[in-house]
């Protein structure tokens, strides 16, 4: 997909995020918007789906941003509009956090932080053991890396040279109740992951070209961590870098204003 097309993909994801949030009255709009460009790049330019049985795997470990994934899968045509219409509806199929058995393309159930990352390591190991070229990508939140399970996996993965595993950190610098550095800092993030034996790259998480270059770059026999600098609520000016948009719901008026910006 060209840069223009990826930008359009990201815009469509953002519009769908706002629509889904408006319709459901659910939170985490800012968290979903911050990773829209990462998902557009992955689904537009990186992930291989043909043949489906040997596809690359994307795991949304920060599953509170599920609307971003549902939107990407819908734009990509992997889930149907009917499935999407049932998001958070009584009798619908798609819950606010992820259920692997709910729809195609949901590669891992998630919702509690610090799970998808480790499941992804297991999948990467399994693919390598089978001699499969399938790759695994897992998107983690910055706050999510305060989970102990993340660091268990961080220690483990280099031991086994899992270079078919790429973690991407959505570093939007706002977790549930403040800035990470004010709560439980994981800085210096690059030095930490490098010292654990990971190949680390830092990139602007809203620059599709830079993201694609970093993700598609060579691996050196190590698992990779791509630290993607992002802005929570990106794309809707009054949501950007605002903690409240971890929780606030999208009213009719908010929807109207947001959609004008995302037109």
């Amino acid at each position, binding site marked *: 997909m060209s840069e223009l097309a990826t930008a359009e993909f990201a815009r469509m994801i953002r519009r769908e995020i706002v629509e889904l949030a408006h319709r459901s009255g659910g939170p985490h709009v800012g968290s979903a918007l911050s990773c829209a460009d990462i998902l557009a790049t992955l689904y537009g330019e990186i992930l291989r789906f043909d043949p489906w049985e040997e596809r690359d795997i994307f795991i949304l470990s920060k599953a509170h941003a599920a609307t971003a994934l549902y939107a990407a899968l819908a734009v990509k045509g992997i889930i149907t509009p009917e499935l999407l219409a049932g998001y958070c509806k009584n009798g619908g199929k798609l819950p606010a956090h992820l259920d692997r058995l709910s729809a195609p393309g949901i590669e891992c159930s998630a919702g509690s932080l610090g799970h998808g*990352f*480790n499941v992804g390591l*297991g999948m990467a190991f399994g693919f390598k053991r089978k001699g499969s070229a399938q790759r695994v990508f897992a998107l983690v939140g910055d706050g999510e890396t305060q989970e102990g399970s993340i660091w*268990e996996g961080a220690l483990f993965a280099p031991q086994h040279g899992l270079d078919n595993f790429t973690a991407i950190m959505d570093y939007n610098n706002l977790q549930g109740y403040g800035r990470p550095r004010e709560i439980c800092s994981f800085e210096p993030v690059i030095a930490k992951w490098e010292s654990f034996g990971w190949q680390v790259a830092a990139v602007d998480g809203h620059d599709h070209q830079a993201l694609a270059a970093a993700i598609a770059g060579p691996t050196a026999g190590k698992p990779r961590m791509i630290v993607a600098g992002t802005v929570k609520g990106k794309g809707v000016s009054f949501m950007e870098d605002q903690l409240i948009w971890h929780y606030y719901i999208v009213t009719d008026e908010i929807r109207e204003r947001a959609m004008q910006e995302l037109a």
Partner: protein
Amino acid sequence: MRNRFIDTLIAAGEGRDDLIFLSGDAGLGVFDGLRRDAPGSFVNMGVAEQNMAGFAAGLAMTGHKVVMYNIIPFLLYRCYEQVRNDICYQGLPVIMAGIGSGITYAPQGMSHYSIEDLGIAATMPNLAVISPCDATEARAAAEYALSADQPVYVRLAKRGEQAIHTSAVTDISTPLKICSGSDCALLFHGSIAEEVMAAAALLEEDGISVMLISVPMVQPLNEDALVDMLGPVRLVVTVEEHYEHSGLGSSLLWVKSEADPGWRLKTAGIPRQFIHEVYDCKGLRRLFGLDAVQLARKVKGWLADE
């Protein structure tokens, strides 16, 4: 029973590329042969239980049959949420082999006991739970787990358990009658079997006819088969090295409330308390009235109450 269980799995793994064993840095010696003969089928995951359980789920999602090995608290408690969300909620056929059932490890302390694991397992509705009483049941449990298309938790003691069965067990999924009797039925699972067998012998000496039933598959419990088997006995007693309020005893209370049978139910297990007392396994059994002599005495008392 532990080695019989693991060795049965390893033997089945010969010629099977999908079978892989994960250990949480536990089981010294148990996997030596496997590590020598098939090093690619064993991974020591280190002391990192959350990663191990999530990793096991991921491996299973790539078509592997995964055996996860650890002592029970580190298999089921430390990483409960990974077992719940990653393995069970996703319906993955991971085999969880837990060592040190009940108070096997006494006097190692509460951190190493597993007297609430059945209660915890009961919160995961698709998890099959097998608590073998001897090596014969352990073998059958391994065979069941290998062919299962759902998660299976096997609750094992360790070594040196008394042999209860004299012939092979063909169906581990149903209660197994060890001997018939008409006055009362003693139901048990796991390594407490040796105390139950000895208690039954004492009762028989006093002219009491005892039916003995091993219930290896605690979850899901084959309730119909069990109720049929119990038939006209007047008194049913569950005996387990587990909290009596969240194990087989409480499952039987459920059965009794549903089936409205003619028998009375009494439970023998570990009371609602943390264990601060320092004794070996035999000593703790005596402390909690789970040794053969006290079990026989209790059963006589309950029969006399009628």
